[in-house]
């Protein structure tokens, strides 16, 4: 029954064009949002930019609880509410926009594998750092997570979330890991991504119709895929977030092609927007603090 309902909803979604007032919801940018949520939100924003679909970012303190799956970000398009990058990609595909339909089956499988790698390694490492590293938890997470709420609710919600994440870490076997091991994993993940990227502009460089003006020349258009959006979201956030120590961002900085990749996507898809809160990646300076 649920599958039939999903199929029906997809049909319905496909029938309507992308509206002007589509909105993306996330937590409050300056005081509340954490590293992992910011990365996920940025990934979705990048993806929608790459598809050329306008969306405005709305910050709400209760975004996490508004979301149908409990995770941010989620988009409100017409009557539909869809959360997380995977379902959003499917939803957008049903409306006829896709970044990866030029890929063949092998490449699609490879893309899925790399996206899984980012979700299992990078995202989990971010969660570990936020919720299981005592220093970060004390100095950053507890202050930020419950900040829109009055005492004692801020403490209760924060501890409740911490307990939930720690339980999840135990379930996937990360509870026993130390911070060094986690950073090692991050390093390995970045190494894999860096190797796959090589010297190319994007992870999959299928040429599309049309030409584009780049570096003062007309070159064949190469479009990024959702993998690029996801990697950009995480790496850019790691690079620009100030934590208690710089160890995490240092691991990423070891790979210069990844830094160039982030800068390229930032320039191409986020420059030229207003400097207001509608886009979280528009800072001219590379270092942007997400806390204090």
């Amino acid at each position, binding site marked *: 029954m649920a599958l039939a309902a999903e199929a029906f909803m997809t049909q319905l979604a496909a029938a309507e064009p992308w509206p002007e007032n589509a909105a993306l919801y996330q937590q409050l940018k300056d005081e509340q949002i954490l590293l992992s949520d910011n990365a996920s939100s940025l990934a979705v924003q990048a993806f929608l930019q790459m598809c050329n679909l306008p969306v405005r970012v709305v910050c709400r*303190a*209760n975004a996490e609880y508004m979301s149908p799956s409990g995770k941010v970000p989620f988009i409100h398009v017409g*009557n539909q*509410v869809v959360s997380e990058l995977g379902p959003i990609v499917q939803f957008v595909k049903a409306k006829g926009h896709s970044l990866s339909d030029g890929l063949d089956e092998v490449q699609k499988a490879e893309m899925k594998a790399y996206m899984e790698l980012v979700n299992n390694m990078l995202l989990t490492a971010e969660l570990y750092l936020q919720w299981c590293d005592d220093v970060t938890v004390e100095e950053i997470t507890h202050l930020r997570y419950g900040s829109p*709420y009055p005492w004692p609710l801020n403490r209760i*919600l924060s501890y409740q979330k911490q307990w939930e994440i720690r339980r999840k870490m135990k379930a996937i076997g990360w509870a026993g890991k130390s911070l060094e091991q986690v950073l090692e994993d991050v390093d390995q993940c970045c190494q894999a991504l860096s190797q796959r990227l090589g010297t190319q502009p994007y992870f999959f460089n299928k040429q599309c119709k049309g030409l584009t003006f780049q570096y003062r020349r007309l070159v064949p258009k190469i479009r990024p895929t959702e993998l690029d959006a996801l990697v950009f979201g995480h790496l850019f956030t790691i690079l620009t977030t100030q934590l208690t120590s710089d160890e995490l961002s240092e691991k990423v900085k070891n790979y210069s092609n990844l830094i160039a990749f982030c800068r390229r996507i930032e320039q191409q898809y986020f420059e030229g927007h207003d400097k207001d809160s509608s886009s979280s990646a528009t800072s001219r300076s590379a270092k942007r603090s997400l806390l204090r």
Partner: protein
Amino acid sequence: MSGPDFGALGEEAELVEVEPEAKQEILENKDVVVQHVHFDGLGRTKDDIIMYEICDVFKAKNLIDVMKKSHEAREKLLRLGIFRQVEVLIDTCQGDDALPNGLDVTFEVTELRRLTGSYNTMVGNNEGSMVLGLKFPNLFGRAEKVTFQFSYGTKETSYGLSFFKPQPGNFERNFSVNLYKVTGQFPWSSLRETDRGVSTEFNFPIWKTNHTLKWEGVWRELGCLARTASFSVREESGHSLKSSLSHAMVIDSRNSSILPRRGALLKINQELAGYTGGDVSFLKEDFEFQLNKQLLWDSVFSASLWGGMLVPIGDKPSSIADRFYLGGPTSVRGFSMYSIGPQSEGDYLGGEAYWAGGLHLYTPLPFRPGRGGFGDLFRTHFFLNAGNLCNLNYGDGPRAHLQKLAEYIRWSYGAGIVLRLGNIARLELNYCFPMGVQSGDRICDGVQFGAGIRFL
């Protein structure tokens, strides 16, 4: 008063005549003095709380007075809720210091056990639930009570722990501290709510009114009941903390709370949230008024009026959990449960101001079947209900508000049968004709069933 007429037996008749007069003299005219009051069966109950309840017995001047005051004392002792039974024995005084008109009054009491359990079913407004309870009566000897209750119902599950302490000598004045967790599901708004809270309240009577002062701190969690909930309800999901002070006043002169025959009820309730912490800030007022009058032929005419207003303080809009709702078999009949007023995609959002009124005529069943027995539990009733619910823009002023509440009045009329369940609840089966229906309201025209305690 004259004795039995024995006719020819002149002398014996005379004797018989004298005795009844003498008896009457003892009962009404002879002074007695209550010399001792004994208590048998006290265990953990402290003496001073007993003293307050029985001190009146000492003031009795004659035998009828002693009997009356002892009966009153017995009622007061039972009301404390610490004795399983209380028996009174009045006897003449024996012993060295006994006066000729001295009396001894003995109260034989059985205390409740230290721990009692209970299992009941409860009827709320259109819901039923099963309640398991554990009670520690008379915990420290002065009628303190600790209760733990777990309730599982069609709409709510809840559990709660409460501590109750009356003032010794003044049972009507008491205070209690409660901790509770209540979850509720509200399909008319596609909303799920979990409240975890602590409250303390003081009850005290002033003249004929009963007052309650309460502080309550609640952690509220709202969520969508279904994936198809409207976005307005989705926006209200999340956590909030309400810390509020409230005052309620009740004057109740009715002879019963379910199907009263005479008397009136006035309840006024106000709540101020936000000044003792929390992030919800409002002032809420609501009142309930009911008047009953018995007419010819065992029929009763009843009029009731409800109203309320919620004024948010500050610039945050009001929360769906604080707003008023209207409609349903216990409110304006003929409409679906809480399905009147502002709504979004079929989810009812409630309103910040409302009023509702009802006129009822209760008569016994036609042809009075089962009279004197089962038939007395049923009544036929004819009703006229009306009401309105809306959001107000508080910058507009009272005149605009009254105007807004007076336009688009929903009303209904009909007839039905009411069944009274003890002194606890009432069931209704009505045939309703809803009128004044606005677009967006959901109606239930035709047969509507309702069960509850508080009906419009």
